[in-house]
């Protein structure tokens, strides 16, 4: 029973780990968002060469396990583990997100682009001002799946030394001798809450951004 006392004392320590996890998550999702949008636009609107290159890049990034990417960036770059993890997991996420955005962009009726061009917009202006605002709203649903997936993958950063919640719980287990089941159970609960909260926020966001009159993704 004293384990609960120890845990209560260690709660701030674990909480700091949670903050690092969240920092990692926001970092990698942002890298993934920008990279994913870029790759998606390239794949849909690029010429034959550019779209083929974009396709190869995302196929390659998706074929490699997250752990391998983490190690690759850890040993290739001279940055602290948190930064290399954000880069590695962010790149991988951008490959997955590019597929989400590509699907959303391709669901926008081509008439939208035609109308934009006929008003004198360049292709880029059409993409930025007309297609992407609509595509992003369609993408929120699948994107919340990606969000849940990435939240869980942040636990992998533990193997390259990021001192997030997994590593901190290891420390606690190592000096309380044998309460691994309980502590990892609590860690699992923390991830569950994190995922649920994020998803709830994304549902709310989807509600808020929904434009009346436009098709809602079920």
């Amino acid at each position, binding site marked *: 029973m004293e384990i609960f006392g120890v845990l209560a004392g260690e709660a701030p320590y674990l909480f700091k780990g949670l903050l690092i996890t969240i920092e990692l998550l926001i970092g990698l999702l942002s890298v993934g968002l920008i990279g994913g949008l870029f790759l998606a636009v390239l794949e849909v609107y690029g010429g034959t060469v550019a779209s083929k290159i974009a396709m190869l890049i995302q*196929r390659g990034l998706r074929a*490699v396990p997250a752990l391998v990417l983490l190690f*690759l960036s850890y040993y290739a770059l001279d940055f602290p583990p948190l930064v290399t993890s954000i880069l590695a997991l962010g790149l991988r996420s951008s490959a997955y997100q590019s597929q989400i955005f590509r699907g959303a962009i391709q669901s926008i009726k081509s008439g939208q682009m035609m109308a934009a061009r006929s008003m004198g917009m360049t292709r880029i202006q059409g993409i930025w001002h007309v297609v992407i605002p609509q595509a992003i709203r369609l993408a929120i649903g699948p994107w919340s799946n990606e969000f849940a997936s990435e939240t869980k993958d942040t*636990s992998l950063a533990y193997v390259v030394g990021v001192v997030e919640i997994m590593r901190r719980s290891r420390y606690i287990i190592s000096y309380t001798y044998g309460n*691994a089941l309980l502590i990892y159970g609590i860690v699992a609960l923390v991830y*569950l809450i994190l995922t649920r909260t994020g998803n709830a926020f994304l549902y709310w966001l989807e509600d808020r951004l929904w434009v009346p009159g436009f098709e809602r993704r079920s």
Partner: protein
Amino acid sequence: MSELIEFFQLAWEIGPRLLDGTVVTLELTAICISSGFIIGLALSLGRVYGNKLVYGVTTTFVELVRGTPLLVQLFIIYYGLPDVGILLNPLLAAGIALGINTSAYQAEYFRGAIQSVSAGQMTAARSIGMTRFGAIKSIILPQALRLAIPSWSNELIYMLKYTSLAFTVGAPELMAKAKIIAARNFRYLEVFIIVAFIYIIIVTGFTKVLDIVEERVKIPGLESGK
């Protein structure tokens, strides 16, 4: 240029040793995906056709397993179970953890597929006197499983990549072998680049094979699509 030659020399030297690891990786994938298939199918049937209690239990299980990281599940099984007296070797623990994890995801894919088969099928089957179980076995599942092939192949590829996590508990698969070799030669970056290539080759190969399988078993007119 000389670095490139050194790189290929290294690849040539360590290839065979990495091959042992690759075999273990493939074995682990095969074991967990097949046990996951059986458990996942059972779970999905429980979620679609079960009574309130069965539905509650299976849904809770699926939500818990899908909502928590694989790494945490692996650690609970490998480091946590000894607390209650169950000691497992790394490979077995990894197989069980991966199997449980994939069964929850597969349960969701199968549930979606089963629910896509039109309700009229079950009604028709019952009206000619089939039992529920008979109808599920002979009518619904053959259609549902074909509809589930794209998501299932996706899951297979995912599992192939997630076996790399088994290295954190010491299972002798590809990542573990790679780390040992890299540490011995101090050539971490090159070794992991080679490992990345191995994974790309395996994943691409599996994807192509699965595409062919999907073509062969599909029923014209009954494709999954919107």
